[in-house]
């Protein structure tokens, strides 16, 4: 089935140790998003790619970076994770930015020790 896949589902890292989360999609959608969701909070958009064009949200910390090497894959890099970065990280895709549903992956739960 066409879907959005995130690996790993659970990631444990140490304070300050770089970590990469991955997302892949078989929907051939143009747009890929990364959200951060903390407990009992709304998903918060970090950045998105429209094709190869990267769009960073103004309040996304510099500690967070992203790469999209091709249509199917997108990566979230956290250069120096802090305790406050522990959260669920959600990848989503959509055909277009405007007027389209977003399709979410199952998420990666990040723990920072």
């Amino acid at each position, binding site marked *: 089935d066409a879907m959005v896949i995130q690996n790993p589902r659970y990631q444990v890292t140490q304070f300050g140790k770089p970590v990469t989360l991955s997302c892949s999609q078989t929907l051939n959608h143009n747009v890929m998003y990364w959200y951060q969701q903390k407990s009992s909070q709304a998903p918060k*958009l970090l950045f998105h790619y429209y094709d190869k064009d990267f769009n960073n949200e103004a309040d996304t910390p510099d500690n967070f970076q992203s790469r999209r090497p091709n249509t199917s894959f997108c990566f979230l890099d956290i250069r120096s994770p802090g305790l406050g970065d522990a959260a669920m990280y959600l990848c*989503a895709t959509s055909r277009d*930015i405007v*007027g389209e549903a*977003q399709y979410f992956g199952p*998420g990666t739960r990040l723990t920072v020790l």
Partner: protein
Amino acid sequence: SQKIEQNSEALNIQEGKTATLTCNYTNYSPAYLQWYRQDPGRGPVFLLLIRENEKEKRKERLKVTFDTTLKQSLFHITASQPADSATYLCALPDKLIFGTGTRLQVFP
């Protein structure tokens, strides 16, 4: 700045009743609004999109209304079932600004 609020953090209802969830927004005139369902530990799942020129939209037991004058959307689940228990999120375009959600619990 744009703001979106879902009035109830939690809603408990009995099976078979209609659940009604509210989403209000300010400082924005969206062309459409979306509703998602999120189960614990999972990503949100798209349910419905309603455009500003649509007063009401239905999908099976789900119904969404959109009142641009009141700046409000209502989400209804008729004949609710325990399997409908989840958190329901409304979202504004573009790129989706999510409300914090309403946690619905349907009791047998």
